[in-house]
């Protein structure tokens, strides 16, 4: 169990560092950017997210630093221009910025198309009307997710990161971890299942 304890301690240390810019503060920054085009607020947000998006783009471009910087900058420009579309009731700022970075990556690195549904499509089956309680719950999702992720074991976080965040295929993960592909698949499935359970537990 020792390695797990070490990992948890590391996770908490990262957690503390992350709190340098809290979720509430980010929402404040986002609304200042959207409503008053506040360049000062954007500078703080930029300082926080640009290095992180750049690091993500570094891996997505297999270490091309010049391209990664360009893409991270372009992502942050999209954040500036699209700030009015950010809805704090639907997602955290970091989640929203992640989706912008990912779409940028698909456009520029994979040169692919990512078909997406349209929230305003009259054919879309809408979410159930949200009660005030559900909205508060959504706002607490961030904290719940952090706790649920910390509760996952290191090997489950590892495969989640590799398959989901790094966008590696099952066979690439199998190669890197030196595991049979079936083990990789079941581990990913189990990681998702555990995450779901932990979130359900948190919601109680």
């Amino acid at each position, binding site marked *: 169990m020792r390695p797990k304890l070490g990992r948890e301690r590391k996770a908490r240390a990262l957690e503390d560092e992350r709190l340098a810019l809290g979720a509430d503060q980010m929402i404040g920054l986002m609304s200042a950017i959207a409503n008053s085009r506040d360049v000062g607020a954007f500078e703080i947000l930029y300082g926080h997210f640009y*290095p992180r*998006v750049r690091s993500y783009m570094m891996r997505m471009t297999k270490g091309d630093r010049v391209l990664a910087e360009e893409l991270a900058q372009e992502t942050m420009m999209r954040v500036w221009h699209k700030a009015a579309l950010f809805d704090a009731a639907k997602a*955290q700022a*970091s989640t929203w910025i992640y989706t912008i970075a990912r779409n940028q990556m698909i456009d520029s690195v994979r040169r692919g198309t990512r078909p997406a*549904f349209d929230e305003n499509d009259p054919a*879309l089956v*809408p979410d*159930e009307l949200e009660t005030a309680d559900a909205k508060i719950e959504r706002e607490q999702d961030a904290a719940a997710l952090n706790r649920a992720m910390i509760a996952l074991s290191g090997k489950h976080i590892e495969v989640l990161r590799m398959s989901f965040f790094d966008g590696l295929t099952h066979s690439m993960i199998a190669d890197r971890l030196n595991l049979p592909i079936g083990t990789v698949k079941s581990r990913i499935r189990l990681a998702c299942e555990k*995450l779901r359970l932990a979130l359900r537990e948190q*919601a109680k």
Partner: protein
Amino acid sequence: MRETTPSASGTSQMIAHHLDGDMLMQYCAGTLAEGWSVAVATHLALCPACRSEMRTLESVGGYFLERENAERDDVTESWRRVKDKIEAGHMEKAVRMKKRSSSDLTYPEPLRTYIDAAGGLRWRSLGRGAAQMIIPIGDKTTSVRLLKIPAGQPVPEHSHGGLELTLVLDGSFSDEISTFGRGDIEIADGNLTHQPRANPGRDCICLAVTDAPLRFKSRLLRLIQPLLGI
């Protein structure tokens, strides 16, 4: 994650057959091929439960983004460049309104845009009242088509060289095991030979995505398959 319940008004139907978890994860990670993604995104338009699942996965992306390496070298320089652009009012793009050429709500976005891009609905007969329309996409690993099966008729019997995903858009069909209605997804792999049949009363329209050409049992259908482009 929240469970969905049918609304009291009965306007939102329950979807019984949801997305495969792997596929949704790949879609959220941006690694899913375009053909599958069309079906995934169209299902998402019809399924609040899977949209909620998608948001959870995306928040896992946000979680990992927060924990990315945050080394700050060259940040000031980069900020200066961006600030210059902002102050010059550079790249302010007008928000373009999406034009809606079709008001047929049978086909939610993004599928409707694909149909429009192909010049609108154009069914080609497969015989016995069945018809199909190939949806052109940019990705070579999958093929995407709409399939119309007359009410009460079987889908031509076939097995799959690979994976086939079927999303019901109108009417319903049943196979030996279950019934699939609007928004439901059926995934069949290479081992399955099945004989789905459209239910009586209404033609069944599906979006079908395959990663390999279909193998029809009928020799004639196999022969003309390349001509039909399926």
